């Protein structure tokens, strides 16, 4: 991962905007931001962003690569799409934030302990394993993310919810064993491997 980061820094030296345009989903829109701030004001988690979207856009143009990519900010996106529908220039802001978070994660620069980054990774691995989400495995995995002791404490704090879900038939206690997922798991895995290869090639991530 570190090697890709070095390669990208070399290739796009002093031009972070060009790097974002080339490698970040919908990054070509960044230059269109007119700094009105409607996105920042519309974000439900606005106050939790160290740098709200409007600032992120300006920082990209100012070449503040490390500050942007190492930021917790993009990880605050709840995917509510408020910014997208309100942006007067119709920038796909939600997708750009997702793209930046994904890029930072790929380069190994995203904050290691950010809970959404960790949960998102766990979520994708969960859903791709069988093609469908295994909810019990996902929730137990989330509680025990930081080890056994913390896991027990978290599970205990959440026990009322868990019991409620079990009692109402909305959680499968045997899901670890009985979850089936898709029939064509092999095909899905091959397909995803190919997709990743193509994307890495296009974005210059391939070795």
């Amino acid at each position, binding site marked *: 991962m570190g090697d890709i980061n070095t390669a990208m820094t070399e290739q796009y030296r002093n031009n972070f905007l060009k790097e974002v345009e080339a490698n970040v*989903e919908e990054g070509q829109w960044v230059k269109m931001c007119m700094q009105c701030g409607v996105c920042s004001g519309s974000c*439900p*988690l606005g106050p*939790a962003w160290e740098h709200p979207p409007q600032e992120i856009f300006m920082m990209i143009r100012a070449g503040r690569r490390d500050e942007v990519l190492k930021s917790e900010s993009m990880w*605050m996106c*709840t*995917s*509510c*799409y408020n910014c*997208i*529908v309100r942006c007067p220039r119709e920038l796909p802001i*939600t997708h750009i934030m*997702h*793209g930046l*978070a*994904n890029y930072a*994660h*790929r380069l190994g620069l995203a904050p290691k302990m950010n*809970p*959404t*980054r960790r*949960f*998102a*990774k766990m*979520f*994708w*691995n969960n*859903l*791709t394993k069988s*093609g*469908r*989400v295994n*909810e019990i495995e996902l*929730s137990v995995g*989330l509680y025990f993310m930081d080890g056994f002791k913390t896991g027990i404490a978290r599970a205990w704090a959440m026990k*009322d*919810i868990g019991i*409620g*879900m079990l009692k*109402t*038939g*909305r*959680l*499968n206690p045997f*899901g670890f064993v009985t979850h089936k997922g*898709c*029939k*064509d798991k*092999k*095909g*899905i895995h*091959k*397909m*995803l*491997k*190919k*997709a*990743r290869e*193509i*994307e890495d090639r296009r974005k210059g991530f391939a070795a």
Partner: protein
Amino acid sequence: MARKEYSFYPGCSSERLTSASNYMVSVEAMCKKLDVQLNEIPDWNCCGASIGYAEGGELPRHVMNARNLAISEQVNKGQDVVATCAACWLGAKETKDRLAEDKGLLAETNEALREAGMNLQYKGEQEVRHMVEVLIEDLGYDELKKPVVKSLEGIKFAGYVGCQTNRPFGIAGESFENPKYLDKLVEMVGGEPVEKYDQKVTCCGGALAFSEPEKSQAQIKKIIESAYDHGADMIVTPCPVCQMNVEVYQGQINKRYGTKFNIPVAYYSQLMAVAYGASAKEAGLNGQIIRAPRLEEIAAKAAR
């Protein structure tokens, strides 16, 4: 033959013993009464949902959605794809839009799709629609009202539309800031909608309810508080994540904030199923963690 037929994308949370299995149960009851047939896309997979982007990236996410759509094109020919889950709908529709405008991405998607079984190729032939769209646009409020045999009179509902059923696509003719369709559906079944529910399109935190519980629960508190402030007996929503977040964290919010929240949160389809004469079980009401006694009473009564 049924009046309408659709290619159905149920999604992970609709399976038996999952978080929105009660939604699915009620959708089945509702569609049966409306004579709408849902043909499940065989071997459908997850859409990637709203946080799949972080590890999945761009192309793998689109490929996952394209696989469902390609199977649908092959098996459920000539039918529109319908999703009941907001995230499934959004993910699939986003992929359809993106592949329609980017031929390069489309070619890459099909290159990856060839690796999967079933000899798939995505062509982009079918529309991707939300169940609510289908109800309103293909059937219309008048038709939807016809099977009503019980009125939900006397129950006041806060119509919580949330995010992803509403943005970025939304339902045609509705505004992003104050969509009215959920209130209209409530009125249609005889209930009373909260006219000025100011948290109607507020975000519940989505997937961040798991990873950033404090921040998310602050959002959920606003959504519930406003429902109480406006005298609502219940909250109604079209989204599985909204339903779960707003219902199941009430106990935790009470602990955190000293509130006494205990308000039922149902799906529009549960309201409709009950109004159409379904039993509490057929309407999935046994799936509510916070029971909805008034809906259960009506469901138990004989139809007029």
